């Protein structure tokens, strides 16, 4: 049942030092296969290292019936990409989807001015690193550009007044929304307008992002994305969306269409089916040591196909809309009318080992809530100098290397349960005792999700569970 771990490729970046040793090479860790835990989680058409032809074929198939006749030969088109897609499974699958979209649009419309916009969050130089690493300048000659939330804005008139997008996103006749269906930050989107979210994030100016994150919530944040998308301005440029679908097994397909609401509904159903059980299984971990060892920031780092952020929040069912962790500005875990405080972290996390990560998100709550060990002086320096986590290293110790960090973590956590967030899909890198525990708990979790939770999640969103079961994944 357990096999070799399959950690993801780590991309070189100015935002994190290269790891000297990958956690998966530690003695005794195994790769627990997701399909053995939950055989009904959608299967992968592509896993890291596989043949990218599967991505090309899936993208072409998804685009076959999508309308593109509004794009004329002399028009300009921006394909909009988000940095997170490039952290999934080494990023090559997402890059392939983007290149294929360009090829198909060109073939179908004759349009030559097809540009790529690589959008980012707080890592300002990351889009340039992405463009270089994936050879996107060759695929989009003189037409691949970085988009950052602090770049020049463009006003977008909406039903709640002016909001601001980033000008470079919209500087073409048409836009193509090329995203992914990975769960990412469930606490922010709650599977409401998941497909629209980048219009208030990746494609938006910083003020607009902060309006969504700080001034709305805990369930209404994506209303901002919806009103921006529905604006006359965005509607005048929008052509279609194309989404790389994922499950903890890997990339499961590509979905595309010009009806973003319909795509959103599909993403929601696929999301429940793909992530409902694995997320619930993580809530069955009562004590563990977590090891961070992948490309990106901790919150969005994948282990067993699910982000670490979903584990730090695992004790709450965030698919359940009756759960009301208040919005980001308040801290996540206090229900009204209690007083807000710093957002807390799943108490099952008894120690945290940071072997490899990138800067890029405020996450002080990790170090203040979990005994945290940085591996090596380079990582410690990175964290100490991070302007987004001013006090992180005041709450964190440094170990000389990964092995001593693990030894120390075991001593303070007093558990043999280890889970590694190393970017792996298809398999979860864990210690044998944790593999045994998760394997034993999986059948109960599966039943609970099928019989109780899934019908509740669907009904809360106005969907008949029986009808949802008929939707093709």
């Amino acid at each position, binding site marked *: 049942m357990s096999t070799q771990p399959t950690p993801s490729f780590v991309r070189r970046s100015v935002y994190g030092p290269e790891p000297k040793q990958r956690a998966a090479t530690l003695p005794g860790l195994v790769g627990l296969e997701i399909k053995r835990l939950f055989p009904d989680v959608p299967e992968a058409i592509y896993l890291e290292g596989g043949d990218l032809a599967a991505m090309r074929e899936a993208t072409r198939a998804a685009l076959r019936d999508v309308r593109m006749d509004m794009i004329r030969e002399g028009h300009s088109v921006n394909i909009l990409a988000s940095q997170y897609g490039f952290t999934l499974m080494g990023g090559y699958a997402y890059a392939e989807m983007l290149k294929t979209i360009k090829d198909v649009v060109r073939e179908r419309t004759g349009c030559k001015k097809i540009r790529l916009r690589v959008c980012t969050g707080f890592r300002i130089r990351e889009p340039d690193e992405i463009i270089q690493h994936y050879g996107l300048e060759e695929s989009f000659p003189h037409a691949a550009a970085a988009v950052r939330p602090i770049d020049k804005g463009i006003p977008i008139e909406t039903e709640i007044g002016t909001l601001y997008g980033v000008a470079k996103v919209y500087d073409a006749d048409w836009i193509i929304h090329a995203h992914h269906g990975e769960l990412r930050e469930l606490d922010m989107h709650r599977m409401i307008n998941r497909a629209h979210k980048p219009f208030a994030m990746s494609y938006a100016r910083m*003020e607009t992002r902060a309006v969504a994150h*700080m001034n709305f919530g*805990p369930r209404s944040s994506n209303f*901002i994305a919806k009103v921006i998308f529905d604006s006359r301005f965005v509607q005048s440029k929008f052509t279609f969306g194309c989404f790389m679908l994922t499950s903890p097994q890997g990339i499961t397909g590509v979905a595309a269409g010009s009806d973003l609401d319909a795509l959103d509904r599909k993403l929601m159903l696929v999301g429940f089916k793909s992530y409902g059980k694995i997320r619930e299984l993580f809530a069955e971990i009562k004590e563990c040591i977590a090891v961070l060892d992948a490309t990106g920031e901790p919150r969005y780092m994948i282990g067993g196909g699910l982000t670490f952020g979903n584990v730090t929040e695992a004790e709450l069912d965030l698919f359940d809309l009756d759960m009301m962790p208040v919005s980001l500005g308040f801290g996540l875990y206090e229900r009204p009318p209690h007083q807000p405080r710093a957002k807390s972290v799943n108490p099952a996390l008894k120690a945290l080992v940071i072997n490899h990560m990138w800067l890029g998100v405020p996450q002080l709550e990790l170090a203040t809530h979990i005994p945290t060990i940085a591996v090596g002086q380079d990582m410690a320096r990175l964290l100490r100098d991070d302007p987004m986590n001013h006090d992180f290293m005041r709450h964190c110790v440094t170990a000389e290397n990964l092995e001593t960090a693990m030894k120390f973590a075991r001593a303070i956590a007093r558990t043999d349960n280890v889970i590694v967030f190393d970017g792996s899909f298809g398999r979860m890198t864990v210690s044998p005792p944790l593999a045994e525990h998760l394997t034993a708990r999986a059948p109960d979790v599966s039943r609970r999700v099928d019989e109780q939770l899934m019908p509740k999640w669907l009904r809360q969103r106005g969907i008949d569970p029986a009808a949802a079961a008929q939707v093709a994944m």
Partner: protein
Amino acid sequence: MVEIRFKARVDEEKCVSCPMCENVCPTAAITLPRKGAKAVVVDDQCVGCPNCSGVCPVDAIDLVLREKPLVVGVDASDVDEDRILALCRKANLHPQQWLCLCTATRVREGAAAVLKGAATPEAVALMTGTRSGCTVYCLQPTLRLLKAHGVKVVQPKGYRWYDISQTCWDVPEDVRKKYPGHFLEEDLEVFRKI
């Protein structure tokens, strides 16, 4: 208190006098004094965020360690508590909620800064140490506090920041009704209880 350990340093040889750094600085610490001039940093105004060095097209800006950290912060205890609470209430903000996650600064400290005379987002940032990290999230509560205090905020030239501050409280009723399933009324109720 927030300890600012870094500051921006411009390499004049490399600087091409474009306005990009000026447009992303949260405290107006880096400017081009005149057209064609090299960028200049006012050290005491620089909060060491990654913006200018990140956007510089010719890598002319580095963040360097200060000889002595710049320590900033507002002691809210010497401001009348009732005034802090009244301002927070008017801004529909809880005094204990985050103003800035990067520096772990609470709204009460931002309110104290405004009550002590900070009249622009830049001044609040310099007094509290906020906007020294991601520079993004803290702008909204800052604008809301300033406006609730009656300050007429003036959007700067260029694109350093845009003056928008819509909240859950501002969504017109007809729009709320138009978007069922977006939990606008329900979330407003959550905020009201808090």
